[in-house]
């Protein structure tokens, strides 16, 4: 069971959370795995709506009911099941679960194409309230790691290329930032990104996107990134 633990992927999408689980292995293993994973992360996942990506796994109505119960126990609401197997999709529909994400915002891998909320949707209401709670990670985020957090994120360590952080609040990296960071992901344009060494693949604040200039930057000074006059700009941290 340990071997598949990290096969559970959790990422934030506009509709809430997208949780993907492995195709293979027994159903009992899957339930156990979900319980462990959700219990660990309950503190910051709870209350979310969940779209569950099950790949080619065959699931009937009874299995889906059990999964619903698993999420309910962890204070999550299952609202969609993304399945490759037609009979699993049929079963999901019979339980009044959605079987695709609205507006096809996902690519074939279920990766969310655009994490920007449309103005006027429910999500912008959430941004009216300041982001609460901070997540502190004392580790280096390596390629493939994905952090989704409603609130601020502080990383004490590096963010390597291929890693991503999506936060509704600010993101502070006490180390080298070389991956992707999306601050103010729910539309907060006052969110900032700070790093001791700023060399990201891409930065996003609210619905703005910026990429680093191509030339190699020799500078290794702390910088802060914010939206100024509708544009993402990096400023040296010299106050």
């Amino acid at each position: 069971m340990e071997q598949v633990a990290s096969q559970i992927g959790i990422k934030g999408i506009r509709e809430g959370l997208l949780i993907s689980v492995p195709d293979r292995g027994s159903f009992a293993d899957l339930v156990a795995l979900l319980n462990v994973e959700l219990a660990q992360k309950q503190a910051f996942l709870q209350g979310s709506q969940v779209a569950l990506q099950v790949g080619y796994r065959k699931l009937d109505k009874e299995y889906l009911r059990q999964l619903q119960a698993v999420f309910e126990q962890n204070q999550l609401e299952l609202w969609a099941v993304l399945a490759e197997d037609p009979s699993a999709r049929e079963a999901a529909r019979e339980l009044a679960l959605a079987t695709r994400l609205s507006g096809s915002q996902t690519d074939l891998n279920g990766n969310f194409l655009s994490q920007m909320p449309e103005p006027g949707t429910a999500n912008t209401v959430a941004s009216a309230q300041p982001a609460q709670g901070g997540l502190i990670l004392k580790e280096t985020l390596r390629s493939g790691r994905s952090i989704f957090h409603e609130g601020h994120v502080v990383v004490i360590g590096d963010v390597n290329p291929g890693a991503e952080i999506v936060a509704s609040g600010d993101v502070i990296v006490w180390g080298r930032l070389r991956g992707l960071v999306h601050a103010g992901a729910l539309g907060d344009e006052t969110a900032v990104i700070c790093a001791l060494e700023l060399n990201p693949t891409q930065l996003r604040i609210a619905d703005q996107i910026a990429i680093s200039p191509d030339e190699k930057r020799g500078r290794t000074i702390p910088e802060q990134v914010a939206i100024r006059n509708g544009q993402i700009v990096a400023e040296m941290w010299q106050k």
Partner: protein
Amino acid sequence: MSGKVVTVTSGKGGVGKTTVTANIATALAMLGKKVVAIDADIGLRNLDVVMGLENRIVYDLVDVIEGRCRLRQAMIKDKRQPDLYLIPAAQTRDKMAVSPSDMILVCDELRQEMDYIIIDSPAGIERGFRNAIAPADHVLIVTNPEVSAVRDADRIIGLLESEEKGPGRLIINRLKPEMVARGDMLSIDDVLDILAVELIGVIPEDESILISSNRGTPVAMSGLNGSSASQAFRNVAQRIEGQTVPFVDLTPKTGLLNRLNNWFSKS
């Protein structure tokens, strides 16, 4: 006696996992250790080819796991090293024929009589990778000094950390000192800057590796012509053994011609 399981992995394909496995297994055997190399790349086996043992295969790893033969019967004795063995992969099956717990069982049995069990992991991060690292005591990550290979190595290190297999130790393979000197290739420092793990070997690009792989004689053994790669592999084996071996200086020799070249290219 309890042997150590060392898994060689990389994420990206084509960086030289199989070559590294064959050479480290050979170099450890040359130090007088009892070594068995396991090819965990079920369906795409080639460790047997690199070690020159292809024509001796009767039983393979899947045969052992499915009980068609005893473990001992699947262990092919090397042609040259008396205490080196190979357990080949099945060519006609796929990764799903083996589970991580199968690998742990097989390795636990091998630990009884071997000093080292070296596992050649398949590329990727799926089942085959998980099979290969499940029994590992130590993990060696092979990468090339290029951005895509380093990116994948980074991912692998992250996965190893989440499986509590430690960050692993790094082998930088196919380094071309001349290209590094010209600034056209990532340097050792560039790679370590991103990956931040312990370096256990730097293998220079060397034609003799390809030649000896094609001949089925790992370069660690054949390196008659004082090949620098041969020495580098033997150094890795000694470091695995816990010895402190200085890294070979790989800065290109600056002859008069080179210096002139540099001088012209600068101006």
